[in-house]
């Protein structure tokens, strides 16, 4: 690697100390391959505009505009209106701040324990291209 020195400068370098031509390794550095908690490689992902906190106020419609009228099942998926055990969509979109508080353990306004869980599961599954994704993604700091 170009201008890179070995990562652990404080440990004795593995370079052998040459002694008249036949190198005598003093003590090779220990290397552990397995059992790394969060993995050895983290890739930095772009932070979204709202991570600049006060930059934006935004809303998350449940479900998004493309699926208005659908009901929300426990696991957050969109099901046909009236499906037994699923929840009618809430009366209005949730504000970014309300979702942030719900992520911290409170409940979305006007929801029961069960419907709150269903709505939050829907919000957590939002993908780019779906309405409310940018707003939700920005509420998580840092992402990924």
């Amino acid at each position: 690697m170009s201008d890179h020195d070995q990562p652990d400068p404080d440990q004795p370098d593995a370079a052998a100390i040459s002694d008249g031509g036949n190198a005598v390794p003093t003590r090779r550095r220990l290397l552990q391959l397995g059992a790394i908690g969060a993995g050895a490689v983290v890739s930095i992902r772009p932070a979204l505009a709202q991570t600049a906190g006060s930059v934006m106020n935004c809303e998350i419609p449940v479900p998004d505009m493309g699926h208005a009228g659908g009901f929300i099942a426990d696991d957050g998926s969109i099901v046909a209106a009236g499906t037994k055990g699923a929840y009618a969509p809430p009366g209005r979109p949730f504000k970014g701040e309300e979702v942030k508080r719900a992520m911290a353990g409170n409940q979305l306004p006007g929801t029961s324990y069960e419907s709150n869980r269903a709505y939050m599961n829907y919000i957590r599954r939002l993908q780019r291209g779906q309405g409310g994704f940018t707003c939700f993604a920005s509420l998580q700091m840092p992402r990924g």
Partner: protein
Amino acid sequence: MRHALSIRIGPVGFRIGSDWRAPIDQLAALYRDYPVPDVADFTVRLFAARAWRRVIRPSVTIGGDYMLPDAAPLPLAHGLLAGEMAMNLQLALGYRRHLLLHASVVERDGRAIVMTGESGAGKSTLATLLASRGWRFMGDEFALLDPETGLVHAFPRLISLKNAGIAAAAAAWPDGRFGPSLPDTPKGDIRHLVPPAAAIARMDEPAMPALLLFPRHGVAADTRDVGASEAFVRLTQASTNYVALGEAGFRALTGLVRGVPARAIDYPDGDAAIAAVEALWAGL
């Protein structure tokens, strides 16, 4: 557009258009002492999404060169806030001349403290308090880091104070110029404070970052070191254009975290915070 205004804040020029007069008049009054750009870097639009929304329960939709799909409209009474948000959004989504860090900045003797943290961590209040104790205010929303020189440039927009921060700032700045109070916005009660005259006059003077702070409000006073890798990762998430800047962003940010000491300070109140900052500054 029917009403328009151009202002330059630090190195960034904005052209702001509006379907209504009120937001433009408020911005013009508060940004009275700011220069006018010859060519604006960004265009911002405050408009009524539906024609009838211009008059009936008027609500302001934010538009401009760079946009986000989920933006919620604001009542016309919060038009000033919409203008500020729209300008911040252009920077966050479209600006590349400097590495943008979501941070407040103050300067003394050509050296700067960069204070970063989530909104609500008290960055604006802290910067305002320090400015009232002789530090030069450089910005309360964005720090602009020049990838070539490593210098930080000022972006002294209106200081947006929230809830308790308003009273704290009013006490620290008895003769400060405040904007209208904007009750129950999505972020609670907000009031804008015009930065001190010196901050506006000297906004083209950059400074060398000397201390990186991660302040946190509302807990027992404490100061701890922040390692280079932790500071690096936290700053990549506090920057909206780090990834977009590519190699220049990598060199600027690794240079910053390797060259500048980083500390996390928890503070129960303003005085404790200022004491902690002055102690750290003296110890540099």
